[in-house]
């Protein structure tokens, strides 16, 4: 009995050793790839940080209004965030490569799918960024136009424009990722329609007088409260 | 060979104005004469002219270059005899050159026997042959023609102790045309010369024949009546003879002198002449087109006489103040060039001896509706001498050669009736007939070819004129038509090359044949006809449908 146990153990140990000896080179390769990947990620982060600083990316993201969002979320500023993201992505790519070397069934397929997903993720992030920039520009333009036209609640108008554009951008983002596309589109359509309906009701019923005053100010000459004609002429 | 009979000969003539005194001296006395003029008829025949207008050659004290006549029925001794004139006349006719002489109807010299008699006493039979007055207040407001020298149209005669009327120099008393005897006598004078064979008269100073209180004393109906009478007699007794009016008036005021074709045959178009100079200086056709637009139609048997220069100053009377000021500043910056209301310079100096402009101006002269008159010496580009006083600077001896006295006279230079032009540009060594005859592209030869082309078609003398008004105002373009013949004339008034698009749709299908080189230009189509012209260039095109 003791001999059988020793023999089985010896066989198991030998099998394990054989198996380990078979997989050890792959583990070593994976470790090397991971290490190289770390170095590459480090370099990538440094390079990305330099480029983003050169193009004053922080200011751009400030203009886009992204800086505010990041600060509120407790995240570092755009340059640093993207640099770190660059580091993480680069290292992850190498790690995944290393893992794929191990030859574990199912993992390779997963990794392949992940690599196919990455470009769409990047595109989506770009959409978000450009969208935020655009939303910021147009909301500011709306604010300025409303102030200079002496419209009531200019900030509300500006915020509404920004919100609509952000929702639109987000729906584009999710559509790009292919995450609940139809749901997102439908949700955007419903939200947009509801917002418009709400505004119409609010403006029409609740803002009747306001609407009247607004139209008067657009269509009739500029008069002061005493009804006199304003002859202000800058040039 | 007798001269060809043609009732309307003056419409196709090229007139050459000459002064006997200035043309050629045959006897070495320093003054030109009829024998000399006769010797030079070949030259004139070669040039191509077919009528010669002679300035006054009658006996005269010559205080107004012969326009102060002291004997109407003779020839000034310096110029020869009546026989010399007769010989000259016959020689001219043999060459088919007609002769037009001056007839100064309005006034005589104060040395004329008529005036001597008239002033002698109040009872003299010829007293009433002149216009006398006890005061100088009659006919107030009448303009003075010779502003530079005369202060009044009345002059005091110490002999008869009264004033006499004179519209020109004070030594040129006006004849009184209210007196029938005067009218008869003047007709008699004209008959005298007509019997000799002259072909026409240039009637000097015709607007002033009659005076009436409260008028301008110009262009009065009575004056026209006198002319009509003269014309009637002329047509009855001497058909085919011509009367040419010298009347410096606006076109509308000139028109009555043609009447219904029963007054003057021809009249000088004075207002056009300065405007031609103005147009070239402004590089703008507007002055020419506007004055011709204001020019009324004349009877078919009448004709305008056109000229660039003559023996008088380039008159600026028929210009507005602004125009006159422009002309003086442009052409007579030196005030000594100005006299009365005009400029006493010859053609070449006026145009700065620019051959291109001289050619252009002559081309316009030859292609406008009317009979052109060329002043002697302008065909070779003679210069002037403003230091000779009055208008004598443009009446210097003709320059025939570069040699002794310019070939004008064999006498000493000091004996010449007037000094020759001697400056390096216009002086006779540089500008003379002989040297220009030897140069194929000389002004003289060019003028001869211009005249030849002009004479090749009757359209220039007798045809209608229709102006084209291309957008480019530097181009003066017009179409001349007579019966089936059509000629297009295009002139570039600018010192720079020009492009012009002409609306020739009316002549669609015609080809253009340039009349000097006889080369063919493209056919007229639907599109505007594009032409390009060099500085001061001109084209004469015959339009043919082939």
């Amino acid at each position, binding site marked *: 009995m003791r001999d059988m146990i020793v023999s089985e153990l010896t066989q198991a140990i030998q099998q394990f050793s054989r198996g380990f000896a078979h997989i050890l080179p792959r583990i070593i390769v994976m470790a090397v790839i991971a290490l190289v990947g770390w170095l590459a990620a480090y370099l990538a982060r440094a390079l990305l940080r330099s480029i983003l600083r050169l193009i004053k990316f922080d200011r751009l993201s400030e203009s886009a209004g992204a800086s505010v969002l990041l600060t509120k979320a407790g995240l570092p500023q755009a340059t640093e965030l993207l640099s770190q993201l660059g580091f993480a992505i680069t290292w992850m790519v190498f790690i995944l490569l290393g893992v794929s070397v191990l030859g574990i069934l199912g993992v390779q397929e997963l990794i392949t799918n992940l690599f196919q997903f990455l470009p769409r993720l990047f595109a989506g992030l770009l959409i978000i960024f450009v969208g935020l920039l655009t939303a910021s520009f147009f909301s*500011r333009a709306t604010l300025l136009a409303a*102030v200079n036209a002496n419209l009531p609640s200019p900030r509300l108008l500006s915020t509404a424009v920004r919100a609509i554009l952000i929702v639109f951008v987000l729906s584009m983002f999710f559509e790009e990722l292919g995450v609940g596309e139809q749901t997102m589109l439908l949700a955007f359509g419903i939200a947009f329609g509801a917002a418009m309906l709400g505004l119409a009701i609010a403006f029409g019923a609740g803002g009747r007088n306001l609407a009247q005053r607004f139209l008067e100010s657009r269509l009739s000459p*500029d008069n002061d409260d005493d009804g006199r004609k304003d002859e202000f002429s800058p*040039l | 060979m007798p001269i060809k009979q043609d009732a309307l000969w003056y419409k196709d003539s090229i007139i050459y104005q000459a002064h006997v005194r200035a043309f050629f001296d045959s006897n070495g006395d320093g003054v030109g004469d009829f024998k000399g003029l006769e010797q030079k008829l070949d030259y004139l025949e070669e040039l191509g002219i077919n009528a010669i207008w002679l300035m006054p050659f009658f006996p005269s004290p010559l205080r107004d270059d012969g326009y102060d006549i002291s004997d109407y029925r003779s020839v000034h001794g310096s110029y020869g005899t009546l026989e010399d004139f007769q010989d000259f006349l016959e020689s001219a006719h043999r060459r088919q050159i007609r002769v037009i002489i001056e007839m100064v109807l309005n006034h005589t010299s104060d040395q004329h026997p008529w005036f001597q008699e008239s002033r002698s006493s109040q009872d003299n039979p010829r007293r009433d042959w002149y216009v006398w007055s006890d005061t100088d207040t009659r006919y107030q407001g009448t303009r003075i023609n010779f502003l530079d020298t005369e202060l009044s149209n009345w002059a005091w005669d110490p002999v008869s102790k009264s004033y006499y009327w004179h519209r020109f120099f004070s030594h040129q008393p006006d004849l009184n045309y209210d007196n029938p005897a005067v009218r008869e006598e003047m007709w008699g004078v004209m008959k005298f010369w007509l019997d000799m064979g002259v072909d026409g008269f240039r009637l000097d100073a015709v607007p002033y024949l009659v005076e009436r209180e409260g008028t301008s004393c110009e262009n009065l109906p009575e004056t026209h009546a006198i002319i009509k009478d003269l014309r009637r007699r002329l047509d009855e007794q001497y058909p085919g003879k011509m009367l040419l009016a010298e009347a410096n008036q606006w076109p509308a005021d000139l028109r009555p002198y043609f009447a219904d074709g029963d007054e003057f045959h021809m009249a000088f178009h004075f207002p056009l002449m300065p405007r031609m100079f103005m147009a070239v200086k*402004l590089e703008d056709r*507007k002055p020419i087109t506007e004055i011709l637009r204001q020019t009324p139609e004349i009877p078919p048997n009448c004709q305008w006489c056109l000229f660039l220069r003559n023996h008088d100053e380039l008159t600026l009377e028929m210009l507005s103040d602004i125009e006159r000021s422009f002309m003086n500043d442009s052409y007579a910056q030196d005030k000594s060039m100005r006299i009365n209301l005009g400029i006493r310079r010859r053609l070449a100096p006026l145009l700065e001896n620019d051959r291109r402009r001289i050619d252009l101006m002559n081309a316009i002269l030859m292609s406008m509706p009317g009979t052109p008159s060329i002043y002697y010496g302008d065909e070779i580009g003679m210069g002037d001498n403003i230091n000779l006083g009055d208008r004598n600077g443009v009446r210097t001896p003709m320059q025939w050669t570069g040699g002794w006295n310019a070939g004008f006279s064999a006498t000493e230079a000091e004996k010449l009736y007037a000094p020759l032009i001697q400056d390096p540009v216009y002086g006779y060594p540089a500008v003379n007939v002989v040297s220009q005859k030897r140069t194929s592209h000389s002004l003289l030869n060019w003028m001869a070819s211009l005249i030849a082309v002009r004479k090749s078609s009757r359209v220039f003398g007798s045809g209608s004129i229709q102006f084209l008004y291309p957008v480019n105002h530097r181009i003066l373009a017009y179409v001349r038509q007579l019966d089936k013949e059509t000629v297009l004339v295009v002139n570039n008034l600018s010192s720079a090359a020009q492009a012009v698009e002409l609306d020739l749709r009316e002549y669609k299908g015609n080809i253009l044949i340039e009349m000097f080189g006889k080369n063919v230009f493209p056919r007229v189509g639907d599109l505007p006809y594009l032409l390009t012209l060099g500085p001061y260039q001109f084209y004469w095109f015959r339009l043919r449908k082939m």
Partner: protein
Amino acid sequence: MKKSKAENDEVLSDEFLRQLMGVGEVDIVVGLPTHNNAATIGPVIEAIQGGLLAFFPRERAVIINADGGSRDGTPDLVVNAAIDDVGRGSKIYALRTLHAISTEYASTPARGTALRAILAAAELLRAKACIILSPESTQLKADSIASLLRPIYSEGFDLVLPTYARHRFDGLLLTNLLYPMTRALYGLRIREPHALDFAFSGKLGDQFLSQNPWDDETARAGSESRFTLSAIAGGYRICQSFLGNREHIERRTADLVPALRQTVAPLFSFVHSTAPVWRGRLGSELIPTTGPDREFTREPLRINRKRLLGMFVSGVAELESIFRSILTVPTLERLQEIARLDEAQFCYSEELWVKTVYEFAAAYHKSVISRDHILQALAPLFRGRALTFLLQNNQGSSDDVVNNIETLCLEFERLKPYLLEKMEL
């Protein structure tokens, strides 16, 4: 197919070019940019004809109308002003042809494009002197034309700008920003740096035509102001001529932003590029002027002061986030302070206004946000300054107004180093 409008980069359409060929070389070009001005252009044309015929009868001249799609027959009125031998029925006598031609440069008006077309035509025609007139300047007389052209034609100046008799409260942007800032920077007391009636030499016109960035819409919109600034920066000889009463042209308050684009944008653009010119200049000097330098008319002008204050206060409040990008903290805080004042106590001091303007100029140069947004943000602040000017000068005499403007100008001059500091020059 016949082109009637300019296409792509062609400033001169084929038809316009054909007309110019017909005109040929000229001495004087009179440019008239128009758009539906049939009601007012008559007196302007009369003044042009009268001026040219009386004072420049021998000169070759052309009236060039650059029209932005008029539907009321304005171009025909201009073209019929020609005096030529075609027989338009004009009874006016002229020594030489006076041309009048017209081109439609666009189907909607754009003054910059109109100016460009006129400049291109003037260059082609080798004009010695050019004059641009507003079709609404009905106060112009024949002498006005002479007083604009003579300095160019006979006295060797390159640019003649107008001065007018205006109401003290007409042209507040001019008196509170354009005039004092131009004066402070460039040392020249130019009353109307943005002129609609002005004359210039062919040499200056050619230079501006070749150097102005016409493809840039902002540069095109502010062409008149850029013209003056180019002349100043280029060291050209400039003078002024008095052109009489400036007719008050009714404008809506909404026109303030376009006015800023046309005038302040070019001024701010030029600040950096011309720094070598103005950096070392101290003080300012008068420029040769024919007639009064400045006059005030007495007709009443109604301005809604409540509205001005309201828009200032609203602007300061609503645009705070934008102002944070443009203004310094102290300036913004002071603006917020005065925004809390009522009309009786309201005062937008000269110093604060100058600092505001200079900080805006610096922000414009650095493009901290969109430049057009920077200009729009200035509008409510300008209204506040305008209100202070109204309150200061409502009761005073003309001399008081002049003195107050002078005080503002001196403040602009005094704070020039501040501008240099803000622009990091």
